[in-house]
């Protein structure tokens, strides 16, 4: 096992001739393993009638292969003490099994077969449509769904990051098995995937298995990549959504650098300094001093294309409409006066801790590597802490000026309606 100076697992990172990338993080501290397959396929690879197809596909992956049924898949994994699950995002879909390590090989074979050669039984497709429609209703009941969707739709006017990953009730009702099969054919190819295995395994044995399962697959011809760089905003746009809710939610921000851009880690620090803890600028001013919010935070959302710095707050409805303006002036103070070294060092300390805590589980380690590797940048996982250490207070003010373009904030206010909007 090779360790980074931080003590974290450096990982073995390789690529097969057919383009499949894999990462193996061998560690024998706990007899547990996380098996993950990441596919670069998500909301950005959809439009119109295919809205929600990647998520639907994710649901169908565990519905059986030619050799094992859906029930057998979960039974094999769970009877070995494991859990199996998946998640779809804007750019990626990840499938994982976390389990005691003794039976990892068989479970890995099942996971890979499910992802590569699912049978998509037609009767299961129709059943799963109903389940997803229930998931949509469940999501609609949560005001946070409007906050998140509204924020992305306001921020990304040209790029498909604005797409709702789950789709809509209409698009899911109209989804066809053929559309889903086609999405699988296009994107579930080895050169569009990453396999990450972390935990109590032997690297050589894992490499051998990965090559056996994936090595003979042919490279796929991928569709043209969608445009993922958002053009600069030319106006402020904060939309208001009224709905059933108990409080107001505000989400505003601006578009930022892509994953390949060296500004990536400094943007993390900018977000954490602004709103990463109870001594942060936003918390101190908006919650503690002015008592305009109950909670407020900021974070930088990493994308292969344009990322986003978001500021998220919960507040009494009567204070929501003026909050974007208050944030605007607060950012103005930063643009004018910058941050102190102490503020920035606090933010860095928190980010460092958060990174280390996320690596405590094999699932956390594998997920970090999986996300960055499938998007083409495994080096981020290996170099994050080193880059974090180098960020200085002096570089954050120009960063804010560069990306906020005069503090043009875009986003959404979700506020209680006197009548339910749904």
């Amino acid at each position, binding site marked *: 096992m090779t360790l980074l100076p*931080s*003590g974290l697992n450096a990982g073995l990172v390789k690529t097969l001739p057919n383009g499949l990338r894999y990462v193996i993080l061998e*560690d*024998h*501290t*706990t*007899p*547990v393993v996380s098996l993950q397959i990441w596919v670069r396929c998500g909301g950005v690879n959809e439009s119109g009638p295919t809205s929600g197809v990647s998520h639907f596909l994710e649901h169908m992956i*565990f519905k059986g292969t030619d050799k094992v049924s*859906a*029930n057998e898949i*979960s*039974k094999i994994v*769970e*009877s*070995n*003490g*494991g*859990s199996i699950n998946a998640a779809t995002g804007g750019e990626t879909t990840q499938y994982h099994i*976390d*389990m*005691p390590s003794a039976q990892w090989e068989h479970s890995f074979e099942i996971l890979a077969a499910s992802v590569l050669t699912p049978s998509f039984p037609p009767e299961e497709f129709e*059943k*799963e449509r*109903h*389940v*997803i429609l*229930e998931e949509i*209703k*469940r999501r*609609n*009941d*949560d*005001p946070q769904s409007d906050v998140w969707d509204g924020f992305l739709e306001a921020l990304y006017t040209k790029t498909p990051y604005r797409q709702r990953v789950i789709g809509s009730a209409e698009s899911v009702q109209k989804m066809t098995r053929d559309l889903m099969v086609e999405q699988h054919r296009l994107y579930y190819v080895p050169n569009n995937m990453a396999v990450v295995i972390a935990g*109590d395994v032997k690297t050589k044995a894992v490499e051998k298995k990965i090559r056996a399962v994936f090595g003979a697959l042919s490279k796929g011809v991928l569709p043209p990549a969608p445009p993922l760089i958002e053009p600069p905003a030319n106006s402020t746009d904060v939309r208001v959504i009224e709905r*059933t*809710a108990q*409080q107001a939610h505000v989400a505003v921000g601006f578009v930022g650098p892509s994953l390949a851009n060296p500004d990536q880690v400094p943007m993390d620090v900018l977000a954490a300094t602004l709103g990463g*803890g*109870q*001594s942060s600028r936003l918390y*101190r001013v908006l919650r*503690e001093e002015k*008592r305009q919010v*109950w*909670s407020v935070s900021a974070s930088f959302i990493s994308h292969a294309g344009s990322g986003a710095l978001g500021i998220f707050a919960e507040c009494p409805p009567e204070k929501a409409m003026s909050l974007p303006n208050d944030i605007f002036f607060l950012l103005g103070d930063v643009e004018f006066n910058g941050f102190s070294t*102490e503020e920035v*060092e*606090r933010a860095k*300390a928190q980010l*460092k*801790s958060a990174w*280390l*805590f996320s*690596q*405590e*589980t*094999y699932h956390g380690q594998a997920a970090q590597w999986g996300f960055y590797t499938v998007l083409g940048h495994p080096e981020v996982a290996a170099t994050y802490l080193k880059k974090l250490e180098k960020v200085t207070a002096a570089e954050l003010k120009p960063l804010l000026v560069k990306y906020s373009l005069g503090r043009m904030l875009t986003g959404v206010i979700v506020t209680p309606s006197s009548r*339910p909007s*749904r």
Partner: protein
Amino acid sequence: MAQAEPLIVRQFPNGLKWIHRPVTHNQIFAFNLFIPGGSINESPSQAGLSRLMASTMVKGTQSRNALALAQELESLGAAFNVDTPPDALSVGGQVVAEHWEKTLDLFKDVLLHPVFPVAEVEKERESLLNDLKASRESIFSVAEERFRKEMFGSHPYGRPDGGTPESVASLTAKDLSTWYGRCVSPRGAVLVTVGHVPVKALTPWMESLAKDWIAPALGTPSIPPVVVYSTQSVTVEEPHPFEQSFVMMGYPAVPITDQNYPAVKLSNVLLGGGMSSPLFRVVREEGTLAYDVSSFYPSRRFGSAFVVYAGTDPKNLLLAEEKIKFVIQEFLRTPLSEEDLQDGKNYLRGQYLMSHQTNSRMAWYLGWWELLGKGYAYDAHYPDLLQSLTAADVHRVAQETLSLPSITVRVVPPTAQ
């Protein structure tokens, strides 16, 4: 696999017990203090007192105001986590191991010298009132709150842990200070540390805490009466404007101190844990009635409940309920096979193993078992106890539990009543 090092355990004269698990495979130090009692000792008119007190404890001490505390803590990359489940007050945190001492010094300051400034009490009250409101945005929380009220009645378990808007609105800074003086006592308290810190360095610090933390003159408030469950099955409707409906059905279940506790845990998992469970299969996979369907059985000191739930379309609510009842009846009617039994044991043991990967969870488990009367060593014995259960044990316990009078809560849109 790395061998676990032996625990270090010290019982101090002031009543505090310290448990330390040395860990050398990472650079993290985690700690968790459990103090017995809390919301379970509150009167109905002061419900939420423990929650408000706990959140305000970390907002100012005799030597540091809220901002100074936050700045010092965050400069170390640390944060405190405060929780108030019914049976305990829990304050913990984690940090990169090199900063363990400074972090614990801050922890000691908030533990021994909080001042509950009026302005901070008001801010935390607003925050808590908002949390209580925000919980009404979650259909699961709405169902669970009503379920607890119906299942546990006037017992403290029947109230939301954070109190009610009325009770929270009435609390004063003096109430918090008085409650702190009565409840935050080293008697029966457990402090667990897990991490890469030499015991030689930790021990003097712990001894200093034990010396300085004096038990209050007033005793901890009295233990509440035992739970009295309903003698009849009850079904109630909770109207609420959600798109979905929700059904939560539960049965009285034994407290953690009962010898049947592991068997109830296992039967709960066999019924509704995981995607291969009968509940998931019948209600979601075959019935396509729900996205969210599962079961749970909280570990409680004085009494608990065996609960199943599902979120579904309002037009399918009664059908979902019938399916759940069918699954339960089939589970009771059909003898448990050795294969299913072992599968369930493996699943529960596997999940338990995986939940012990982080220092903070290891600290939590050790303290939680100790606090609830099972002893910290139960953490290591629990998987073996599960393994020792027979099919007959589990089936008998399931029969006893699932034939008691049940409480069913249906969350429905107002127009569907």
